[in-house]
């Protein structure tokens, strides 16, 4: 079946603009994760959704970042008033149930803030 998909694949924006990144998880996976991959910084956890539970937002770097997951499926990560330091690859992953289950990653969205 189809894997995790993300859109857009590339996004170039100007400092101060808002951006929305989309993630379509694997059907049937109840857990969904957002990560940020920066050069030299590795993989930084942002937010985790599990079923109908309240999301774990502990990794969001500032209140400019938010995410939602509608209908337990598609998720959108929104960055308001983008800054140059937000430039990175944003990865989405899904797993069957928990963080201990194999996570399947999407191809990522490369965000460039000019």
């Amino acid at each position, binding site marked *: 079946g189809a894997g995790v998909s993300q859109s857009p694949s590339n996004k170039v924006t100007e400092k101060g603009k808002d951006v929305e990144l989309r993630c379509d998880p694997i059907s049937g996976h109840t857990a969904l994760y957002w990560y940020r991959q920066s050069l030299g910084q590795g993989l*930084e*956890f942002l937010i985790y959704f599990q079923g109908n539970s309240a999301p774990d937002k502990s990794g969001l770097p500032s209140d400019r970042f938010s995410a939602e997951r509608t209908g337990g499926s598609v998720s959108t990560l929104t960055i308001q008033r983008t800054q140059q330091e937000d430039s990175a690859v944003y990865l989405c992953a899904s797993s069957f149930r928990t*963080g201990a289950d194999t996570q399947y990653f999407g191809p990522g969205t490369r965000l460039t803030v000019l």
Partner: protein
Amino acid sequence: AQRVTQPEKLLSVFKGAPVELKCNYSYSGSPELFWYVQYSRQRLQLLLRHISRESIKGFTADLNKGETSFHLKKPFAQEEDSAMYYCALHSGSARQLTFGSGTQLTVLP
């Protein structure tokens, strides 16, 4: 809080040489450890997990609770092993994985 440390950002070895990618973790309980790999222009994917005790693509990793380590090893590196490798930890109290900063492995011909 749990933490994963990969001390080497870059590692180069020659084809046919042994390779070891280091991973240390801090967690007081019983963790689950994983290695994820990202080949060039491919998605990040699971390589192996310690509870499976299996060898994938010739790689093995043993959890050493005394040294809190989970080093990834392969006796004879191949050029196709060149990739970014991430060590990750899952603890019972967390709902997500904690990843290390990654090691870029280059296998030279």
